[in-house]
């Protein structure tokens, strides 16, 4: 027994099982997220169920579980779609109530812009009062009609986003210029105001003509209607323009399903959210997250590295520097929401409010910078991650051998030259480790963002084609907040659940990608600046 303890094996086992425990928990978490997240996009079969009470539904089986208090009985959770008809997307059906089940080949899933999926069979396609096709030929006609409506949709999008957006921005600019002149005391008869009013008139005229064009495009595309036969037998119209995707899962092989899968994944990554974020894509959130992390890094790295440089290289080491060091370390333990409140009070109301008064008085009381925005959110997170960067940089600087500094000084270089040419390059890998940690922390942080600029829906990205192209004052979407919002604030919890997993998965990927990039950069630098001594 004593020999056993002396061999050290028990400790090795203890340490080993601790590691195994950690790995198991992480692997479990990742597996749950990956399985749920990736499975969501796969088009599952559409089951036709005739219930004993006479109703008929088409549904995708989401889950099969035991009925509480009834031995051996099971029930199915089905996604039946047609929320506009049934009021609910999901329905539980006891297996004992099912009369027949089948998988009809013509059962189709219509993904719509509104009201979620519609399940049923395609009866006819019409344009205005004319019926274009009926029965078996309707599918081919629907495909060609969808090409027309897709075309129209992209023209409408272009018109709204680019042309009308630009005119809107100009109108707003003119209005602001007018306000500014008035605030400076010009009267309505002043010639520049008269000029501005004329501009305004012209812009409005342009806007109106664009509106007319838009309405006619809309009307044109709304004329096309697909007629859907519901499982119950009713006929319902769906404007073709509202159809996002349509497929017949029971009639598809793996390749066709794979194609639908990929198109759904692509829509998720590149599209905009619909139906209070429970459907569609999350591109604005993805973009907002990445941009916020990049901005944060741009703020925190120079600031943190300079602070650490002063603390380690210039400040006289003593009680004061020790105190500062301890304070910085402790800053890392302050709850992030506290940073959020500081960001709100200092950046948003303090700095932003002052900027508004000084530079944007004409738009007050509507705040420009005096409200949450991506700039303030990234600055707040920069503050939050500052201790990580400072501590890592300080350690990296401390680990640069003193001999290198002396060697450089002895060759006649100044302290600044030594730091820039020898110390910093040697410390770079260590500094980058700190940056990696800070990035990871910043990408996963949500609480402080909720009060400094993240919103549930912000389709206008902080970068776009309208001057000045970079709109740092804009509110933005964030994957972490998106998870919270979809998971806990959504009116349609069942429909939102898969979205939580897919978004979580994506956030994990983003953090992983950001980290991997930084690690690759670091390893390259490490190879170049490896410090070896004899």
């Amino acid at each position: 027994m004593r020999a056993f303890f002396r061999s050290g094996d028990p400790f090795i086992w203890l340490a080993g099982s601790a590691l195994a425990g950690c790995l198991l928990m992480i692997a479990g978490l990742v597996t749950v997220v990956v399985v749920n997240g990736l499975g969501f996009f796969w088009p599952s079969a559409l089951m036709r169920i005739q219930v004993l009470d006479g109703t008929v539904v088409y549904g995708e089986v989401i889950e099969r579980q035991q009925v509480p208090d009834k031995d051996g009985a099971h029930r199915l959770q089905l996604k039946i779609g047609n929320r506009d008809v049934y009021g609910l997307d999901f329905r539980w059906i006891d297996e004992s109530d099912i009369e027949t089940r089948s998988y009809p080949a013509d059962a189709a899933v219509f993904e719509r812009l509104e009201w979620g999926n519609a399940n049923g069979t395609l009866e006819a396609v019409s344009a205005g009062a004319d019926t274009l096709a009926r029965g078996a030929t309707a599918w081919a006609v629907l495909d060609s009609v969808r090409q027309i409506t897709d075309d129209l949709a992209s023209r409408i999008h272009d018109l709204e986003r680019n042309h009308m957006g630009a005119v809107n921005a100009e109108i707003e600019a003119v209005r602001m210029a007018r306000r500014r002149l008035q605030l400076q005391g010009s009267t309505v008869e002043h010639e520049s105001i008269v000029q501005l009013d004329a501009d305004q008139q012209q812009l409005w005229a342009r806007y109106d003509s664009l509106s007319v064009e838009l309405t006619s495009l809309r009307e044109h595309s709304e004329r096309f209607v697909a007629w859907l036969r519901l499982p119950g037998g009713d006929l319902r119209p769906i404007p073709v323009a509202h159809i996002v995707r349509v497929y017949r899962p029971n009639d598809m092989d793996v390749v066709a399903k794979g194609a639908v899968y990929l198109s759904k994944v692509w829509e998720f990554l590149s599209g905009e959210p619909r139906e209070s974020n429970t459907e569609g894509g999350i591109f604005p959130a993805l973009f907002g997250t990445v941009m916020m992390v990049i901005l944060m890094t741009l703020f925190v790295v120079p600031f943190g590295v300079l602070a650490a440089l002063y603390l380690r290289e210039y400040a006289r080491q003593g009680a004061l520097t020790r105190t500062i060091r301890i304070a910085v370390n402790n800053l890392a333990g302050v709850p992030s929401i506290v940073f959020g409140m500081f960001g709100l009070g200092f950046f948003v109301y303090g700095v932003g409010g002052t900027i508004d008064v000084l530079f944007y008085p004409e738009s007050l009381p509507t705040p420009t910078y005096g409200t949450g925005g991506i700039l303030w959110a990234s600055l707040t997170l920069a503050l939050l991650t500052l201790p990580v960067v400072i501590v890592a940089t300080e350690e990296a600087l401390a680990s640069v051998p003193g001999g290198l500094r002396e060697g450089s000084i002895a060759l006649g270089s100044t302290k600044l030259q030594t730091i820039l040419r020898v110390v910093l390059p040697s410390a770079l890998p260590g500094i980058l480790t700190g940056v990696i940690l800070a990035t990871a922390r910043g990408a996963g942080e949500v609480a402080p963002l909720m009060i400094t600029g993240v919103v549930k829906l912000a389709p206008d990205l902080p970068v776009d084609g309208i001057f000045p192209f970079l709109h740092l004052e804009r509110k933005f979407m964030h994957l972490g907040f998106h998870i919270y919002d979809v998971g806990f604030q959504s009116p349609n919890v069942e429909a939102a659940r898969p979205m939580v997993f897919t978004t979580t998965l994506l956030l994990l990927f983003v953090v992983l990608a950001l980290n991997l990039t930084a690690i690759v950069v670091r390893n390259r630098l490490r190879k170049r600046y490896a410090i070896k001594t004899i």
Partner: protein
Amino acid sequence: MSKAHEALESTTVEIDDPVVTVQDLSLFYGPTQALFDVSLRVPEKQVTAFIGPSGCGKSTLLRCLNRLNDLIEDVTITGRIELQGEDIYHPAYDAIELRRRVGMVFQKSNPFPKSIYENVAYGLRIAGINDRGALDAAVERGLRSAALWDEVKDRLQNTALDLSGGQQQRLCIARALAVEPSVILMDEPCSALDPIATARVEETIAELKESYTIVIVTHNMQQASRVSDYTAFFYLGRLVELDHTKRVFTNPRLQQTEDYVTGRFG
């Protein structure tokens, strides 16, 4: 005449035309005194060796000669050091300029994590010289003087960190030579090297003597007697004896010196 000067008269050989003159130098690390009234002269284009037991202040004195002790907080220096007649501790004297004229090679070789070429060119680059031709010439001259050129001429752009220990040390010598100093300080340059690498460095020193003044700290008595023309023996922060190397090793003036060089204490 002070007591120190009397001691100087009696135990040091007269050196005319010195490059470096140290007068009554005392140095304190905080409250503790490390050098006591050291006065000596370093002859031009000769090799002077500093010997003495560990902790007697050889490195400290050496680092005074290029003002490297400025980097350490809490160092107090009294006395006077002249380089070619100028007081290097005078407030108006430029320490950066001084270090270009007085190069240094350290006990532990410390090549920068850069290419071989950039290591040697470093001193010129920080002096603002970026002309490719001038740099190329200086790098080649430095490497040739340090007897390293033939070994590395085909891989100048490789990292210096892949060189062997002996090559790294000669690279550090080349780096110091590239800026063309008039004095080179070497603090135990061979202590981490094997006998063959040591021999190479010693050969290098012998060649450098032609054009440079060299001060070398060493614990190796054979090395001191092989490479140096003059030898200074220190003990507990004081200069005990300074004379022609031959005399120090065969017929020193003081019993203490004889005991040390013959290995009876130390």
